[in-house]
């Protein structure tokens, strides 16, 4: 009896030793390794790992041009993730991962301004124009304003530099200085401005009150961590005016956190299903709006969507329609009916992996269907009022420098926004 229990103990210890690599890295013991151990799997010699390693080494050592091992590794991982056929499961290289994290948290180290390429009247790039300067950011306190044009960074003239390159020059470590040479409002003698880079919360919500129609307008660029709070603030600003209706614009809004969508929807209805998520094990989990955050909306709401409205933006728009609290205007949305989680790695890269599929409150599956060439077949939210966007000439081709200091859409030139205002007014009766 004792010897049996001793053998069992030894066996258990053997298994613990065998699974030590998994335990050490905080994973569940790997069943495949056990299968290999007892001979159920023997194809290790030419298994998928071997296939990958062989190709990796072969390309590094025999391809006739120089290949960076890191670039090759990242390409391999990207290709592997792409082979699942899910466009939202992807590998993010360190730079992309950083950018992605910056967008979802809406928090980064910088000067606190959104810049656009500025062109001379004959269409040549001459620097960067500040289209938004964040109210509480370091650039604002240093004196930079909307419409100012940056022509040099740290005394280096920008000339034909591309906007991404300019941004790269301006970004840097927290607490360090960057010297900008600025044309106030794009004209006059250059002025020197010194900005101390600091943590900045990006405004993801902007608003405007249209006096002529009495309609409030909220423009949301993403569903980031601070979005719900920023929404409240902008809504408060708008409600100082007599509102006949509200247009919430989520066009080109790629989404963000599901939690943020839930928070925002909690302003509209309490204790309502936002989405049902079907997980990999078949279980269903529901996201609900909270009990007591409802804001009284005493006016009709229209949501503007287009083909680039995705993910949390679609959940927000779709759920509000299901609650019968909003009318959707614009073009069909992207159709991303899945939830991803981001797994960061030590080298700064991340894996973004689809972990669940979701359904809207009334059960709709809006997942995008494409043919084998990637052409859209169906999916996304269909708008209640369909309006195609009327293209406008890009600013650099109009022959006159951009004079508008706001980068918000303008109902005078944006036909979809114009239609949204008409619809919301008709609902106001």
């Amino acid at each position, binding site marked *: 009896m004792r010897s049996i229990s001793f053998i069992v103990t030894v066996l258990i210890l*053997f298994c613990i030793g065998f699974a*030590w690599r998994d335990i050490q890295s905080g994973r569940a013991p790997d069943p495949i390794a056990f299968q290999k151990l007892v001979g159920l799997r023997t194809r290790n010699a030419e298994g998928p790992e071997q296939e990958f390693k062989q190709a990796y080494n072969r390309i590094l050592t025999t391809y006739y041009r120089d290949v960076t091992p*890191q670039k090759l*590794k990242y390409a*391999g991982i990207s290709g592997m993730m792409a082979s699942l056929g899910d466009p939202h499961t992807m*590998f993010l290289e360190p730079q992309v991962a950083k950018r992605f994290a910056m967008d979802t948290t809406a928090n980064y180290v910088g000067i606190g301004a959104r810049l656009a390429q500025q062109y001379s009247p004959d269409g040549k790039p001459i620097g960067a124009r500040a289209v938004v300067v964040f109210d509480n950011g370091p650039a604002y306190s240093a004196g930079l304003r909307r419409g100012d044009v940056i022509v040099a960074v740290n005394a280096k003239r920008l000339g034909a530099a591309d906007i991404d390159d300019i941004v790269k020059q301006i970004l840097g470590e927290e607490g360090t200085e960057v010297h900008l040479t600025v044309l106030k409002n794009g004209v006059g003698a250059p002025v020197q401005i010194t900005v101390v880079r600091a943590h900045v919360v990006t405004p993801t919500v902007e608003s405007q009150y249209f006096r002529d129609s009495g309609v409030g307008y909220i423009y949301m660029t993403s569903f980031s961590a601070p979005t719900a709070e920023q929404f409240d603030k902008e809504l408060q600003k708008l409600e100082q005016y007599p509102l006949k209706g509200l247009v919430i614009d989520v066009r080109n809004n790629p989404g963000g956190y599901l939690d943020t969508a839930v928070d925002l929807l909690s302003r509209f209805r309490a204790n309502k299903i936002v989405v049902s998520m079907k997980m990999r094990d078949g279980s269903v989990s529901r996201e609900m709006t909270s009990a007591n955050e409802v804001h009284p909306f005493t006016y009709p709401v229209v949501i503007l969507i287009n083909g680039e409205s995705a993910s949390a933006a679609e959940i927000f728009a779709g759920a509000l329609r299901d609650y019968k609290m909003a009318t959707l205007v614009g073009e069909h949305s992207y159709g991303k009916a899945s939830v991803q989680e981001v*797994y960061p790695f030590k080298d700064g890269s991340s894996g973004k992996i689809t972990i669940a599929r979701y359904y809207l409150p009334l059960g709709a599956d809006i997942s995008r269907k494409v043919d084998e060439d990637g052409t859209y077949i169906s999916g996304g939210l269909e708008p209640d009022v369909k309006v195609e966007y009327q293209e406008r000439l890009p600013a650099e081709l109009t022959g006159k420098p951009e004079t508008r200091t706001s980068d918000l859409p303008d109902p005078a030139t944006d036909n979809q926004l114009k239609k949204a205002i008409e619809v919301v007014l008709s609902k106001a009766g």
Partner: protein
Amino acid sequence: MTREGRKSVRAAAGVLLSIAAMCAGALLRDQLDLGTRAGSDLRGDGLLASTSKTTDLPETTFFEDMLRLLEQKYVEPISDENKLADGAVRGMVASLSDPNSLFMDATQYAVYSKAREGKFEGIGVHCALARDRSRASLATGGIDDAAEPFSRFPLLKVVVVVPGSSADKAGIQVGDLIESVDGRWVPNSAAFDELDRLSKLVKEHKASGVEFLKARSDLREKIDKSVIALKARDRLMIGSSGPVRVGWIHQGKRQEKSFDKGEWTIPTFEVRKTGEIRFSFVPGVADRLRKALLNRTEATLDLRSNVYGDFDAMLACLREVAPKGVYGSIATHKNEKPWPIEVTASRATRVKLKVLVDEGTLGVADMFARALASRSAAKIMGHPGGDPLVIQWFRLPEGGGYTLVTGEYRSGSPNGIVAENATQRKVAEQ
């Protein structure tokens, strides 16, 4: 020994055995996961800690770690690890952005392998991805579909037309460009250049904004209904029945027609009635070439539309026709010295050679022509394709495979690039 003593020895042995069992388990696992190179510095955390560029394993355990992560988290169960491995290889090959280093799935591999032996499916053409040299910014661009489908555009150029095939009967010729397949546009940079040109005109007030907007929305519509060059090529070259509608550009003129797919053959060795010798560089072809050249004082080798070839077969052929000497070199991986193409024991009788080349003379065939030209050992008629590369084929366990460029021809002259240009000019002028 006392009873107590025996007991404590047994207890100690038990403890030792237990520890030994645990260590044995850990070692065995290392052995299983890491093969023979097991060691404490190679724990399976490549994904988390991989910064090393010097050793292989930390880089490659990345794959296993990501695989495990996907198996644990991805919304669908992962049933086929080999598909993921193929995907990884596809991604790595694609990252080379090289029109001659391409991944193939099982179907593609089977079809294109047969084409190497002269057995073609589809409409009876072979198309190559050619860099579009009209746009400097795209010169370094590649062709893969995975990442940025419309940021770079290779041309899809016809380099082989099988005599007697559907394509041949319809008048498709080597050098023609494929423009659409089944109504889907194969994007090319010219269309984008045209839009750029128009935007310049608008800036100079020589065209209206309305015109520009119309052109832009037309282009977007075309992009929405497009097919990438590699897929378009498959649709022309894979399958032996059924119709396919093809738009192509022949000497600047657009044509469109429906074709029947079939099976077509180009013999790997052929002596034409006119005396020209046409052959592919397949293993064993050198012997046939020697026999065909016996008792001749002059011969014409037809290397037009000669896409695929085996490097060793090409060398063997060179020995048959070229006098002793060095015929340039092959530059391979940067760590290795270029090695000379040398004919030491030439069997060459003094046959006066003419070599016919065209835009479809690619790879080792191109190399063969250039090698001969470098020592004026043959008269070259026509302009070769311009990519004298060694392209190797590799097969993957699941039936797919890939090609990899492993060498590039350099002319042997000490004047280097200048001489290379001179050679090219020579090839072109003759």
